[in-house]
Structures are given as structure tokens and as C-alpha cells.
């Protein structure tokens, strides 16, 4: 086992091999650089906020970890392996937009997830959907935007995954729905799993985070525990974010 410290961490922490590791990770799209030489490790059992303004590279980083993109340079490893069919079996990914066909029924989606993911907890998903009052025979196209996002989140969090990659889970929804989403994330969270949650709404997510990673213009500015900002600067992460990224 390796040891590592975060800034502001008093003692070295011994931890297992990181669940997500980026080393010199770079991604370009033509002349545009989305990520530039990003390096960090995320251990198991942490809720990590991937924070930064729009266009900072958060979605690109999450897509690289999910196996939707390939790096231009550097490396991204999930539980020691490059993203592929093996890692996708234990990584649960929530994109920032709805990805189900409008004509598919909710019950059919439950069948789909149960078929492809051995870690899918169907009774848990059905229970959460029942509490949302989403009938199983309704088509996804008949649901409102907020309800669609809730349904997607339920399906993703009902998996007993090792790593959850949540891309802007609370963007574009009302404050009550944001609270529901965050409560669902924490309610379904198991301590042995890791959540990487990207957002620019720092104030809303701060209460659920253990650590955070700040990205700006594709580079990593800071990777630290939330407590580090509180103790070192005497301010919240949101205030630190606003100060650091003031226009």
C-alpha cells in the first residue's frame, strides 16, 4: 500500500491502490486543449467534488474516466486499469443529459440495467422510483425534465458500483430537486465506494463533499479536503471558489 498526503493533512494516510488515477492527463480537440497535464489520485471511500467554472474540463475528465474519450497524452486508470469493458462493469456513470429513448418505458429500462449490470439492485431502484411516484409503465418521453433526471440518477445510484461518475447532476433543475438529488446520492452511497461529482454549483454540494478538485482552463488548481479550506482560509469552499475564479 502507498502513502500520500493532501495539502493541510497532518499525517500521511495509508490507502489502497486509488480507484481513479490521472497522470499527466491531456486531452485536445483540434487546436483546443480541454485538459492539460492533470494529475491526481482519488482513493476509495471518498466523495469528491470536481469543481470549476464552465469550460474548465470537468466533463472531459469524467468522460475520459468513463471510457467515452481517449487521452491525447498521459493516462487515466480506473482501479489500475485503462477504461474499457472491464472497468465499465463497476463504474456507474451519469451524463449531464438524458440518454434514454423517449419511447422506452421505465420498466424496460429496469430490465436493461438488470441485464447488463450484475451490481444493479433492482428492488432498491423500484423502491426509489415508487417514492418518486414514477409508474413503471410510463414512457420516458412523458416525464418532465426534472423527473427524467431523477429517474436516471436513481438507476445510476441503484448500482453497487465501485466508482460513481456524476456529471453535473444538479445543473438545470430547481433547488428542491437539487436537494432531492443530493440526498439520494448520499442516501444510496456506500462508504467503500467513491463518488466523483462535477458541478459549478459549489454552495449546493459542499455539505456532501469529503474532498474537492478545482479545475480552471483545463489545469488542476487544487486538490484538497474540504476541511483544508475551512481550517486554512477560514472560509467555505464556495467562498474560496468565488475568490479564486472571480472574473
Amino acid at each position, binding site marked *: 500500500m502507498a502513502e500520500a498526503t493532501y495539502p493541510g493533512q497532518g499525517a500521511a494516510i495509508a490507502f489502497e491502490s486509488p480507484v481513479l488515477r490521472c497522470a499527466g492527463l491531456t486531452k485536445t480537440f483540434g487546436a483546443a486543449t480541454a485538459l492539460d497535464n492533470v494529475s491526481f489520485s482519488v482513493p476509495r471511500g471518498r466523495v469528491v467534488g470536481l469543481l470549476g467554472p464552465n469550460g474548465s474540463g470537468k466533463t472531459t475528465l469524467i468522460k475520459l474516466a468513463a471510457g467515452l474519450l481517449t487521452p491525447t497524452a498521459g493516462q487515466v486508470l480506473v482501479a489500475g486499469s485503462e477504461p474499457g469493458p472491464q472497468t465499465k462493469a463497476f463504474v456507474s456513470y451519469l451524463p449531464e443529459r438524458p*440518454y*434514454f429513448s423517449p419511447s422506452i418505458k421505465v420498466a424496460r429500462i429496469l430490465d436493461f440495467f438488470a441485464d447488463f449490470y450484475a451490481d444493479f439492485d433492482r428492488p432498491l431502484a423500484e423502491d426509489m422510483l415508487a417514492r418518486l411516484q414514477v409508474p413503471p409503465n410510463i414512457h420516458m418521453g412523458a416525464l418532465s425534465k426534472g423527473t427524467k433526471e431523477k429517474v436516471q440518477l436513481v438507476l445510476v445510484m441503484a448500482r453497487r458500483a465501485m466508482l460513481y461518475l456524476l456529471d453535473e447532476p444538479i445543473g438545470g433543475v430547481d433547488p428542491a430537486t437539487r436537494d432531492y438529488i443530493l440526498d439520494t446520492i448520499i442516501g444510496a452511497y456506500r462508504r467503500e465506494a467513491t463518488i466523483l461529482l462535477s458541478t459549478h454549483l459549489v454552495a449546493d454540494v459542499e455539505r456532501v463533499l469529503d474532498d474537492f478538485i478545482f479545475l480552471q482552463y483545463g489545469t488542476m488548481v487544487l486538490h484538497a479536503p474540504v476541511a483544508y479550506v475551512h481550517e486554512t482560509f477560514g472560509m467555505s469552499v464556495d467562498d474560496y471558489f468565488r475568490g479564486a475564479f472571480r472574473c
Partner: protein
Amino acid sequence: MLGKLFKYDMAALTRVLAPLHLAALGVALLAAVCGLAGNGLGQAAHQASGSAGKLFGMFAGFAFMAFGVCLFLLLVLTLATFFVAVHRFYANLFTDEGYLTLTLPVTAHQIVISKVLAAALWLLVDFLVVGACVAMVLFAMDVFSEILSRSDQVGLPSLPTPSEWLSFAHSFLQIIAWLIAAYAALAAGSAAARHKVAASIGAFLLIAVAVGVVMALLNVFAFSALSALAPAYPIGSLDPYGPASNMIGNVVMVALAACSYVACVVRLKRHVNLA
């Protein structure tokens, strides 16, 4: 996992194609009825006189027009299978649905094979349904009854001959090869920054031109070689050039399918970037 992918791909295609093919059978039945009605009314128009004859003639005309429209609809419906399968490939991988498909714990090979198998199965179903529709239309045109009456003299209708089976296999190979080529064109077109569908159509046209040029060159080479090796055959004769040309066509189609498959897998593995 391949079986599971195939199950959902078949379900997605069946949702659209089953109603279309049932409609095709209904349209063929309507065409047969219109054709029979047109025949009957036409004969009645010949036998009747005056205004009754004109009325029968007018209805006969309407019936034959409806027959023609039905045949046109049948043609449109039979093309639908190909385009629905191609659209399924595009929508499932290169639109927002791609976020789901491309994060499943399956390989790129499994994704492409599943879609090809599902489309191939539906193309076979399409062949059977079109055959049934054509049989109904021929019945209406009295051709069917003529064939049946002649069959009393020449014997019962027989199963297709080996050469007819080969001809069917050749046609089916062509359709599958062009289907996979369409998949590859979509995969290539999705790399464009904008106007992805137009880029895909352009890629498909380029593939078609390339295949046409290759086929033409190979056929010219084969023709020249056979002419040199078998000078006894008149230059204008197709035999043995026909079998050679068929073989060249089959080889080119297999190569097209293989290259298109590889292009699809490479693209899915490394380069998809959903917006």
C-alpha cells in the same frame, strides 16, 4: 453480453419494422383486391353499353390507379428496413443514447456484431414478406393463375435450384455488405465537427465510388485475362466471364464488409466524442 445486446437491438427494430411489414402485407392485399376489381370492372365495361359501360370503365380506372399506388407504397415500405436499421445504428451510438450504449460493459466488436445480426435477420424477414406481397399482386394480375394452369402441363412448382439459391445468397451478401458500409459511413461522418449526417452521406458516396472503381478494374482485368487464356470464346460472349464477374463481385462485397466492420470497431473503440 452479445446475446443481450442482440435482444435489445431486435426489440428496437421490431417496434418499428413489425407494424411496417404488417402494413406492407395489408397494402399488398389491397393491391390484389384493386387489381381483381379493375380486371372485373374492365370486363364488365366491355360487356355493358352506354352510360353503364362508361361508369364501369371509370371505376375500373380508379381501381387500376389504386393498384398502381399500392405497388408504389409496397416499394417504399420494402426500402424501409434498410434505412430503419441504419438509423438505429446512428441513434443508438452517435446521439444521446450513445452515452448509455458506449458505457455498457461490452466490447466494440459485440456492439457492431449485434447490430449487423439484428439488421440481417430483419432483412431476411423483409425478403419473405416481399415475396408474399409479390405473390398476392401476381395473383391479382392473373399471372399467378396462368402459372398454375401451365404447371398442370410442366409439373408441380419445384424448390429453387442451386443456382437460384446462389443468386439469393449473392444478393443477400450485397445487402449486408452495403449495410455495414453504411454503418462505417455513419461512424466516419460522426467525426465531422458539424453537419455530421451530410458528412456521413458524403462518406457513403465515396465508399460507393471506390467500390465501383475497384469492381470495374477487376472486371476489366478478368475480362482481359480470360480473353487471353480462352480465345476460343467470342469476345462478346459472357460465358465464362459471367461466373468470373460474379466471383469478383462476391470477393469485393466480402472485402467491403470486412473493411467497413473494422472501420466501425476502430471508431467506436477510440474516437467517439459525443457532444
